[in-house]
């Protein structure tokens, strides 16, 4: 058996340093990361990277910052298992491996000049934060912007200071809701679709970007279509099991589509007939 190094391997890792971490909720942690060796990550909002902890494993994570932030990027990670729990133990200065970015993000060139209805459920805010920050960085290029956010309980609220900031901005409409309130909660209570009647949109010029847990999609899409938004203008991001990110390992397939390469962001029109999508 012979062994040689492969320069162009699609599994080659880039070294990245954690600049800072911040606990967001009991289960989610925020990481600001910079590539080492003078490299930069070029990505679109909605794309993801593979994050490696050598000896433990590799997981797909959405980049949650705006590409305009050139020198570093952000991740928001929920601790659920092997790799993600181990990532939570890291602190500023620690080094991780990454590869990517991968997949198709939100088509910002197409979104430009249109109104946006951004709907995030729970951790779905992570990839959407990238889009929102991008939109805010380039606010002039977009029409009206609505952001709807829902999560289980107030304590699960991610990026609460940023939500606060969006709420205060006059150039966008922001609303949020929780499934279950706690005594300190004065806001909306109910599933995310309860916020939708309050949004006034011009369907033909509105693009909806929706990211959340699988069960959320069915209900939200129904509402959006009822509001008259064309199927082509509804964008969804999917989460599937993923190992390679290269469209080979087969884990993330939704029928004939590979989430890692053809997605994770899809037009509703593209996938509405795929039984395995929902």
């Amino acid at each position: 058996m012979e062994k040689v190094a492969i320069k162009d391997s699609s599994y080659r890792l880039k070294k990245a340093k954690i600049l800072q971490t911040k606990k967001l909720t009991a289960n989610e942690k925020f990481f600001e990361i910079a590539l080492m060796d003078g490299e930069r990550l070029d990505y679109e909002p909605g794309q993801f990277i593979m994050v490696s902890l050598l000896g433990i494993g590799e997981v797909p994570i959405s980049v949650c910052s705006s590409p305009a932030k050139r020198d570093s990027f952000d991740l928001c990670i929920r601790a659920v298992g092997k790799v993600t729990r181990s990532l939570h133990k890291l602190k500023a200065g620690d080094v991780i491996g990454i590869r990517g970015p991968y997949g198709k993000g939100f088509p910002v060139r197409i979104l430009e000049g249109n109104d946006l209805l951004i709907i995030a459920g729970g951790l779905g805010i992570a990839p959407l934060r990238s889009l929102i920050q991008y939109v805010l960085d380039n606010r002039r290029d977009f029409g009206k912007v609505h952001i709807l956010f829902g999560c289980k309980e107030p304590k699960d609220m991610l990026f609460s200071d940023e939500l606060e900031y969006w709420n205060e901005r006059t150039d966008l409409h922001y609303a949020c809701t929780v499934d279950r309130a706690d005594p300190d909660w004065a806001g909306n209570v109910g599933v995310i679709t309860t916020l939708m009647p309050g949004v006034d949109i011009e369907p033909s010029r509105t693009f909806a970007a929706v990211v959340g847990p699988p069960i959320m999609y069915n209900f939200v899409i129904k509402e959006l279509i009822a509001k008259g938004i064309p199927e082509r203008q509804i964008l969804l991001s999917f989460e599937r099991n993923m190992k390679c990110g290269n469209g080979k390992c087969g884990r993330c397939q939704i029928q004939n589509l590979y989430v890692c390469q053809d997605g994770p962001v899809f037009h509703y029109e593209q996938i509405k007939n795929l039984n395995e999508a929902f």
Partner: protein
Amino acid sequence: MEDLQYVILKKERVHDFISTLSKIQKLVAPVSKGYNNFAFEEVSSGSEIALKYIPTILPLKKFFMPQRETLLEFKIAKGTHAEPVVEYEPMTIFGAHTCDLAGVQCLNMVFSERPKDYNYLTRKNKITLIGLECNEYCDEYASCHLVNASFPSGGYDLFFTDLGDYFIVHVNTQTGDEIVDTTESFEKADTSHIKELKRLRDTKSKIFSNEVSIERRYMPELFDMSFRARVWKALEERCLSCGNCTNVCPTCYCFDIRDELELNLKRGVRYRVWDSCQLEPFARVAGGINFRKERSARQRHRYYRKFRYPVDRFSRFFCTGCGRCTRTCMAGISLKETLNELIKESEDRVWKKWL
């Protein structure tokens, strides 16, 4: 047929040829494992080889993408350093049937697609492939004609056809040419040999005919109609989810990637292993949702990955008709039967629509 590309190997010289070949580099060929089972294993003499064999337990993919292969080697001490590597072993494969050659062609397409998989491609370039024609069906499980894999169509360096006292050999590549030169076992073919070959192929085209009652070109359409077919539901109760059908399939290439550390927790490797869409955890994500929870959905996915999805991507079927999945299934799930049932079910539907 171009004469120049053909040589012949007399039967009495086969053993010489094999032992010479085995001295050039590692040689693997089909050997008998008993109970009408065969496997590609290393050989050094002609007597070890089973020239008449039905498809081996594992297909050739085990040489092109081994069951376990290292992707990265890393050290954890002092930051992290990881180096992508490929492990390979130059070898010659002798005796590949047309279905298995087709399987390798499929894998070549997959791993050449961007982003290219250099682990596969590097290894592939070190493998010499010598095909061997099936003059008749291996058994009732084969369906190679349906998928257009019953006749040779490239993908080899040399291709052997048994014509009684001798093999006629098609030289397809320069590597093949070099083998002919260095082993010095071959003679030039003349027109009578070529005629013999033609005659064999004519007979073959009478023996080999569509194993399933559908024309090849209608297959994608059949599958387009069949996503909700009852056939899949019926498989729910039968399939044991043992993953045998995908492991033995020449074109199933799904894999898992894992890390392994040495005990000192300082060095390790990242490696990939074969995986199977038939296994319970395959499409399960954090949080416990399983996107293909039902065995029926998993079986359906397998069939679509053979007959429908690759048609869009690679313009060919990813079934080579080798029949391994049927042969290996202890629940007796048969590829041909499933297809026939799909056809019957769709005919019902079309018929009812007309009524």
